[in-house]
């Protein structure tokens, strides 16, 4: 208030359907959430112990216009005020992505609006901009069910991949270990809960995969196998293995590698800011450990609140706002890119 020069604000409608959340959101200037609607399918997939792609696609068709309508209503905006439609182009499940893309193309066509394709991982990173404006260069750790990446950003809209997983994503390892322990889906939060309930240190010690000196890549398959073997060996010998011990040691191993490598990247790139993004950023153990490490290193840390760590469309609209300003556009031939990578430097 008290501003005499009226800056025209940019309103972007974001649409996200890459996995099992149907989401739409209106974001102002890439930093202010006007509405953020998510229709979660988690209850439907729970009985299968994981996301079933065909069922996810079916739910997206049921929800897509409902979430778009709710996003516009909650934001109190009309189509005349919207400046562009941002949609997740990939990575994700192809059939699921296509529902959001088809809807986004139709809306862009119907209202003669620019269509902006957004990388889902860029979206996760930009969820942080709702909390704090970016300071460059920055380093971001992106951890989810499908991804474990360390990304260096010298400026808005530019991403350099400096480390990634060579096998399982961190979230994937969490889910698999949870399954072996007989924990309900989704397994990540269950392991986190067990690990946090644990008061004494766990007697178990699982390996850490550091890989070659100076590498920022990850590998979690060895750790996963070690956990599975430990559980099976105990079963065969008829020994009791404490669930919480396994969960705590496994989580500790994952977190130590994630945090150590991320802090190494922060130092090498002389980052001014450290961002954490993706579904696994909701993990309490990771939040605690990286907060401590960032404090010790004296670097500004940004972690979004949990509802912005999991998939949502506000983050797509936020990343899409940068693409919009940088003139990135798609035409009506836009297709889903299930294996889209985040590298453009």
């Amino acid at each position, binding site marked *: 208030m008290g501003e005499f020069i009226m800056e025209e604000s940019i309103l972007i409608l974001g649409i996200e359907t890459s996995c099992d959340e149907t989401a739409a959101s209106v974001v102002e200037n890439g930093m202010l959430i006007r509405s953020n609607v998510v229709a979660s399918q988690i209850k439907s997939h729970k009985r299968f112990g994981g996301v079933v792609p065909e069922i996810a696609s079916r739910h997206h068709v049921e929800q897509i216009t409902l979430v778009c309508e709710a996003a516009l209503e909650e934001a109190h905006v009309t189509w005349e005020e919207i400046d562009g439609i941002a949609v997740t182009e990939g990575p994700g499940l192809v059939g699921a992505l296509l529902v959001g893309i088809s809807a986004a193309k139709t809306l862009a066509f*119907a209202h003669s609006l620019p269509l902006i394709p957004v990388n889902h991982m860029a979206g996760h990173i930009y969820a942080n901009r709702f909390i704090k404006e970016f300071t460059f260069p920055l380093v971001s750790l992106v951890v989810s069910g499908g991804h474990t990446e360390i990304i260096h950003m010298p400026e808005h809209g530019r991403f350099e991949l400096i480390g990634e997983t060579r096998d399982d994503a961190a979230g994937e390892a969490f889910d698999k270990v949870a399954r072996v322990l007989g924990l309900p889906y989704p397994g990540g939060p269950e392991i986190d809960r067990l690990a946090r309930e644990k008061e004494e240190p766990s007697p178990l010690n699982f390996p850490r995969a550091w890989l070659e000196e100076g590498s920022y890549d990850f590998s979690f398959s060895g750790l996963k196998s070690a956990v599975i073997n430990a559980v099976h060996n105990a079963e065969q010998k008829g020994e009791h293995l404490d669930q919480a011990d396994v969960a705590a040691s496994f989580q500790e191993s994952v977190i130590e590698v994630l945090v150590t490598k991320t802090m190494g990247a922060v130092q090498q790139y002389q980052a001014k800011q450290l961002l954490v993004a993706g579904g696994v950023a909701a993990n309490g153990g990771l939040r605690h450990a990286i907060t401590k490490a960032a404090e010790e290193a004296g670097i500004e840390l940004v972690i979004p609140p949990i509802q912005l760590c999991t998939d949502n469309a506000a983050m797509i609209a936020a990343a899409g706002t940068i693409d919009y300003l940088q003139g990135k556009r798609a035409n*009506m031939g836009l297709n889903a890119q299930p294996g889209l990578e985040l590298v453009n430097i």
Partner: protein
Amino acid sequence: MNVLAIDSSNITMGIAIANQDIVLGELITNVKKNHSVKLMPAIEYLMNETQLKPEEIDRIVVATGPGSYTGVRIGVTIAKTLAWTLKKELVGVSSLELLAQNGRFFNGFICPLFDARRGRVYTGLYRSKNGDIIKEKEDTIIQLSDWLNMLNDLDQPILFLGNDVRLYEHQINECLGKENVETHVTKNQSSPSELAWLGMRKRPVTSIHNFVPTYLQLAEAETKWLAKQEGK
């Protein structure tokens, strides 16, 4: 009334724009399924050619399946999003009923079919009456052998329609005898202007939000899960 008709439920991609009984434009391709890339540009092209703006469309008609899950979802998502955002009428038409229109002047039964793999077909039974197509049996997914046994009891010739008929021609002839069966190659793909024509005569849906494809079967994971529950 301007009608936009969209069919991406099977390999054929069809779009038509009609004003009452005049077809203003029609576009059909019958190549590999890449509706995700081709459908919206084709709609955009046809709208430009017919010089219509999106808000000048009064009704959107879409083939709701059965057919390719992904293909039908693309068409249905585009149709329902367009109808919702522009506050227009929306009509869904069975992809089998649409194909059956090609037999409008045939004297006998009309059997449209699409391959559903593992010996099964999506099919239904129709008949022409004064130029209109009347449904005789509900659309279904069924083992072709079971379906043919049922058709064997019919006392009139049957016209089989669909690009996939050739896959089963031998089996059909063997079961029904050649004299009862007719097919014609140019009548095997659905016509989008027939879709517009059909859609003009049907009642629009009452809830655009609830509009979904007609899959005729559960997702495979769900079928397996249900079977497991019953076994418990």
